[in-house]
């Protein structure tokens, strides 16, 4: 089921925000080396059938289209000034080059030449201005709207130049612009049609079933190594797995349960690639209310839960333990798994110190889709051992937004956070979990205003350490990212950062 429908980039449901690490790259390479696809063997006009559980709700990433639209459209149909490569690096795409003024407040972008939209119109600076203003407009539902707030004005001195003026320094501007699709400024009806510059154009979209892309002959960049790409949408993971088993799809973009992997691992017709995701499972407390406003209580609960057991129960041998909100693929990662590691005896001691020698009881609002219910039961058992009684209240994704995200009417909630670079949420005291440490707020602000990425990294590492010491939330584990394909298919991204799935390099053997 598609569960939470979410906007571009910042996503709850699903687990595809990853950055490729050396390990992941090695894994993919190893996996591909096993598949006998040589460069000259592929069919340059092949149709690649991609199976996914995440159908976009509409085709506009500023109109609440959900994560599926990033998967299907980012860098396939629409391009941005920059892109977040599968390696996690920010690379220029439609921006040929850019200059930053000494005060860091003026960015001058020079556009690639010879770029055409699918409608035939050439790309100009006016299209870029139009596209950025779509995301920052009042109607925009883009979750990236906030991060673009420093933009004060956009000027277009000539067709190939865009000048962005900022009201405050924003070291992440190129990164944030990778979320802004460049769209033809004359385009209309973008919830059902498109006019982008990407290597594919939209051929057909059947709601509830499939979205077909075909190679755009006027593409300015490298021609895709296949002819058509069809995203086929399933509502049921089992149906999707069967579709791969029977050959009606070539790739599954994200496998959600380890149980279904065995049938592919033991079958030599398939390739299983494991990348590292940035999806974290969190037990988020409402840090505003007692007893969770007490740091000792939060630390006690962190020590009371054996995270490795929960991970094993849900993901078998996959996934990674984390000690904070930052996954190993973010530049500001620090290994914090030792902070408040599993230690039920000291958990009990801390609870007594905090004034709860006999424990207490609280309710975990638990989304009704996997893996939350299982994980909640596990936490219930673990916490009972230190005398803390947990009631589980199952809610839908939609209710979660009303009750927890908006009304902050909860004690604790389980939630998967897919968001890339999302430590910044701890710098917002109004965020649903209500964590408020002025030092962290300040560090996160300073990091964004930093003059170098090194400075940004140093500040965020410091913030990262503090939220871990404060046990701001209980970070249970980091999801694995698993892509399964038929052996005849190669060249797909394993880490699908920001839910992306670049299709241009996919090759299918003859």
């Amino acid at each position, binding site marked *: 089921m598609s569960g939470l429908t979410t906007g571009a980039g910042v996503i709850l449901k699903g687990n595809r925000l990853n950055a490729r690490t050396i390990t992941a790259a090695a894994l993919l390479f190893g996996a591909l080396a096993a598949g006998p696809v040589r460069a000259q063997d592929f069919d340059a006009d092949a149709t690649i059938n991609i199976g996914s559980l995440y159908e976009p709700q509409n085709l506009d990433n500023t109109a609440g289209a959900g994560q599926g639209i990033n998967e299907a459209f980012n860098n396939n149909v629409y391009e941005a000034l920059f892109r977040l490569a599968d390696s996690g690096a920010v690379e220029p795409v439609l921006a040929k080059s850019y200059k930053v003024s000494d005060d860091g407040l003026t960015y001058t972008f020079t556009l690639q030449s010879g770029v055409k939209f699918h409608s035939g119109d050439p790309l100009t600076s006016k299209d870029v201005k139009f596209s950025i203003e779509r995301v920052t407009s009042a109607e925009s539902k883009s979750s990236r709207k906030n991060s673009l707030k420093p933009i004060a004005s956009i000027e277009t001195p000539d067709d190939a130049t865009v000048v962005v003026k900022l009201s405050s320094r924003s070291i992440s501007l190129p990164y944030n612009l990778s979320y802004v699709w460049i769209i033809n400024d004359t385009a209309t009806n973008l919830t059902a049609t498109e006019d982008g510059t990407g290597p594919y154009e939209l051929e057909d979209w*059947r709601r509830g079933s499939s979205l077909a892309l075909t190679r755009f002959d006027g593409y300015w960049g490298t021609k895709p190594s296949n002819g058509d790409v069809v995203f086929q949408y*399933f509502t049921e993971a089992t149906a*999707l797995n*069967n579709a791969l088993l*029977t050959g009606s799809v070539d790739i599954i973009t994200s496998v959600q349960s380890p149980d279904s992997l065995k049938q592919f691992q033991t079958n030599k017709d398939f390739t299983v690639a494991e990348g590292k995701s940035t999806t974290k499972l969190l037990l988020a407390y409402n840090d505003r209310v007692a007893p969770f406003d007490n740091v000792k209580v939060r630390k006690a609960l962190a020590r009371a839960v054996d995270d490795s057991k929960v991970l094993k129960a849900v993901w078998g041998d996959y996934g990674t333990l984390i000690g904070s909100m930052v996954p190993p693929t973010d530049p500001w990662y620090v290994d914090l798994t030792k902070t408040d590691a599993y230690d039920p005896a000291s958990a009990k001691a801390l609870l007594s110190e905090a004034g709860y020698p006999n424990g207490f009881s609280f309710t975990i609002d638990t989304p009704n889709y996997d893996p939350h219910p299982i994980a909640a039961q596990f936490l219930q058992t673990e916490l009972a051992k230190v005398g803390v009684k947990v009631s589980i209240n199952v809610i839908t994704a*939609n209710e979660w937004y*009303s009750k927890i995200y908006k009304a902050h009417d909860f004690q604790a909630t389980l939630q998967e956070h897919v968001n890339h670079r999302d430590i910044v949420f701890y710098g917002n005291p109004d965020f649903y979990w209500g964590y408020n440490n002025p030092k962290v707020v300040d560090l996160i602000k300073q990091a964004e205003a930093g003059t170098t990425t090194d400075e940004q990294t140093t500040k965020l590492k410091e913030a990262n350490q503090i939220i871990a010491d404060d046990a701001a939330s209980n970070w249970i584990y980091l999801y694995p990212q698993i892509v399964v394909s038929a052996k005849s298919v190669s060249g797909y991204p394993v880490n699908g950062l920001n839910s992306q799935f670049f299709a241009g390099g996919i090759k299918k053997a003859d």
Partner: protein
Amino acid sequence: MPAILSYLSRRLIILLVSILVAAMVLFLLLRLLPGDPANALVSVGADPEQIEAARRQVGSDLPLSEQFIHFVSSLARFDLGNSFVSHAPVLPEIGKRLAVTVPLTLMSFTLAIVIALPLGIIAAVKADRWYGWLISVVSQFGIAVPVFWIGILLVTLFAVNLRFFPSGGFPSRGWQRPEAAFDSLVLPVITIAIVMSASLIRYVRSATQDVLGSDYLRTARALGASFSEALIRHGIRNGSVPVISIIGIELASTLLGAVVVERVFSLPGLGSMLLLGIEQRDYPNVQGVLFISTLLVLLIGFAADLTQRIIDPRLRGRAAGSSR
């Protein structure tokens, strides 16, 4: 003919009132669900202003009474509106979904009748033979088994292992590729037909048993008709009256039961539109689907009533006040 006209107009009034009541009930039920349609449009990271803007856009910030006036007035104009989430007009989308659900329902239904009629009659006539008994037992089993389980079994056997049919999904070009579209409906059709014929067999069997024990059949036999002659000339017509009303109900429930089967087979039918709509609190889509399916169910009931009157002169006679 005025009698049949007055029957028709009475029946139509009932139809209209039922539709109206159904519309109100579903309007209220939807809004009793916790949650907000605007939530489907925002994501973690959205600020309070963005959430409020989304609520204004979908109208969920308005008082219930105002929402209801909007709803009724657009319904009166046969305007089902646009989806909150996809922004697509609801009615054409339902049309596309019906292109999957209606063929699925009708084919399953036809197949179920083709299976159930002869088997039901045999089960009644040959109740004392082992195969008559076997049919009864197997049909009882068929009623007890959930439809999704049969679907999963069929997929495992005929799609995953034997590769006869696709395991799920619908061709991206739909009925423009009729063979592919048909292929993708084979397993779902068989799934529904198995479950549906199981219960139909029981009805046909008991209807046939009633006929077998009837006086008119004995009379026909006494007048020299052979058993099969008597059964075909008198039995089937009499026995079909209760069966038709059951068939009407079954057809309606198949239409709605397709929700489960569509999910198992990932078919883009009315059911998947409804489920997603409920998850997202996409009121226009849910209202549209429920309204159209309520309409269809009521129309099926209407058609079944009418058919019964045509077959059974006694019912006709009651309205017409005379015999044939």
